[in-house]
């Protein structure tokens, strides 16, 4: 869908922003450009819609060389989400979203109608449409920014550190929202960030850039984490990259057995065989510790976390309805984690609940967030005192309740 061929960009002051970049981004799927500042990731992104023109080399979008197209028309055909939203302060939210449709000559009525649909799609109430951007919170503005980029239904979406300016909780919500939208729309997204966790969370593929505009490695998150090309990439991924890898691996293959009859802790179930709490044996007044049951689609990282938090060292496993299917021991989870690390990108776990398949064959479809369709029943089993707030996805990727 988007191809870079030997692309160089040198700025007039002599700095090389992008050095010999060749990269092929398939249709559908999220490619994340990641790297520290000055690595050329944003320049590379901006060359796709000709906000910057390359010094040499060719960029094609949908097979057509961007330099042979009218820049303004090209930009209208590509969605662009700018840092900190960049909304027009003098236009209402609805008119902001309608920007590109109006430029395309849809007419005010049709453009507004499309904008209204988009507003709903990004999770904002219709009355927000009449407000001005400064009347919205940062997170809401960012949603409007995404809606504006999607208004004319472009096949390609460019996102330049879109969630950099919002607080971590809102950022997580926006990331979830983007993954949900992407499941519905399956756009070809290029996403720039300096946050490796965001990259792992959102990317089907991650392109790591090094200062001087060199692309060091482009691979699926799992492969990147398991087999970083060099020390630079390894450093960039950070010391916890093993744990990050576990966040991409599903629990499904980990051995499970029946809940033990003996031992100091008993797993209390309700009438529907849903886990309620861990209770200390030995008569009334035994201590109780909350249980956080996990589904097959939850990650090994959250299982590891739960195995540490659980007093018995056992993790309660449930099906999509929250009914107990068995328990997994700390050591089984630990060895599965070790195996997952050994196998790295070769992980065979598939998206178990029929989520949208990853669009490219090389991308392992472990329990990436887009593989776990939201299932409110399973995310907040009734009557359980979950450590995570009920509205947060309980897949260990919410950033809360996990180390």
């Amino acid at each position, binding site marked *: 869908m988007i191809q870079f061929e030997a692309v160089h960009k040198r700025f007039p002051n002599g700095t090389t922003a992008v050095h010999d970049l060749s990269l092929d981004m398939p249709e559908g799927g999220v490619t994340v450009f990641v790297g520290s500042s000055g690595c050329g990731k944003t320049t590379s992104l901006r060359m796709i*819609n000709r*906000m910057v023109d390359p010094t040499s080399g060719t960029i094609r979008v949908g097979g057509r060389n961007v330099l042979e197209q009218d820049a*303004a*028309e*090209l*930009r*209208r*055909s590509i969605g*662009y989400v*700018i*840092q*900190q939203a*960049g*909304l*027009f*302060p*003098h*236009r*209402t939210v609805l008119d902001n979203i309608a*920007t*590109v449709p109006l*430029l395309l000559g849809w007419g005010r009525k049709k453009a507004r109608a499309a904008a209204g649909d988009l507003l709903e799609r990004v999770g904002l109430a219709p009355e927000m449409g009449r*407000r*001005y*951007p*400064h*009347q919205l919170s940062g997170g809401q503005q960012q949603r409007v920014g995404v809606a*504006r980029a999607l208004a004319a239904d472009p096949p390609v979406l460019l996102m330049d550190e879109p969630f950099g300016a919002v607080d971590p909780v809102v950022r997580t919500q926006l990331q979830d929202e983007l993954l949900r939208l992407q499941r519905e729309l399956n756009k070809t997204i290029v996403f720039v960030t300096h946050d490796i966790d965001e990259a792992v969370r959102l990317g089907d593929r991650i392109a790591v850039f090094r200062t001087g505009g060199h692309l060091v490695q482009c691979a699926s998150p799992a492969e990147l984490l398991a087999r970083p090309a060099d020390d630079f990439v390894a450093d960039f991924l950070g010391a916890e990259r093993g744990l990050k890898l576990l966040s991409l691996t599903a629990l499904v293959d980990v051995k499970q057995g029946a809940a033990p009859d003996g031992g100091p802790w008993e797993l209390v179930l309700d009438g529907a065989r849903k886990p309620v709490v861990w209770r200390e044996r030995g008569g009334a007044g035994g201590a109780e510790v909350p249980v956080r049951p996990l589904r097959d689609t939850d990650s090994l990282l959250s299982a590891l976390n739960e195995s540490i938090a659980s007093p018995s060292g056992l993790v309660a496993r449930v099906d999509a309805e929250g009914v107990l299917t068995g328990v997994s021991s700390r050591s089984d989870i630990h060895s599965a984690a070790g195996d997952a690390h050994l196998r790295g990108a070769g992980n065979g776990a598939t998206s178990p609940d029929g989520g949208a398949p990853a669009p490219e064959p090389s991308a392992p479809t472990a329990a990436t967030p887009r593989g776990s369709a939201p299932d409110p029943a399973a995310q907040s089993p009734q009557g359980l005192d979950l450590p995570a707030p009920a509205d947060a996805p309980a897949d260990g990727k919410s950033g809360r309740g996990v180390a």
Partner: protein
Amino acid sequence: MSFDWEWVGSHRDDLATLTVSHLQAALTAVLLGLLISLPLAVLAHRVRPLRGFLLGLSNVLFTIPSIAVFVLLLPVSGLTRTTTVIGLTIYTLVVLLRNTVEGLDSVPQKTKEAAKAMGTRPLRTLLTVELPLALPVIMAGVRIATVMSISLVSVATYIGDGGLGQLFTDGFQRNFPTPVIVGVVLTLLLALVADALLVGVQRLLTPWARTRTRKA
């Protein structure tokens, strides 16, 4: 030496004519000033080297005493309304040019960037994004230029025009204060009303600023 209400009553028609003529001269000058300074300001905003030259030139023009301007214009346009309007227009240019340039400068880079990235062409960006967002600063200039022109019209009395300014010469020559006081009061009222109207116009033109309770 008391105020002569009878004079006011008997000269009502003259006063109305002078007031209209006064306002016409001032507003024509402001409109012409806007027409000239808008393209110049866009030029000064886009072409950096021109900026200093244009702003400097308008400053130099401003330092010429107003009477001198009218005298210098006499060989060109004579003792006419045209001379008055040209003279006033020159003075409005300083304020309008500077404020329009500053207004355009005040438009956030990010917003212009967003317009470009959405596929808006430069002219449309100027008309639908930059000028609307520059409007508050431009309007501040228009208000100053309007009030300034209304007070300056009187100077044109020396070339036989001057609207309400004629009341001053009339009063001084006859040592009769009533027309002077009436002239001052009417000029003040004109300026205040014009300014209030412009504030209203600005509010109508910038609905997004009305809801502003906190800086975004």
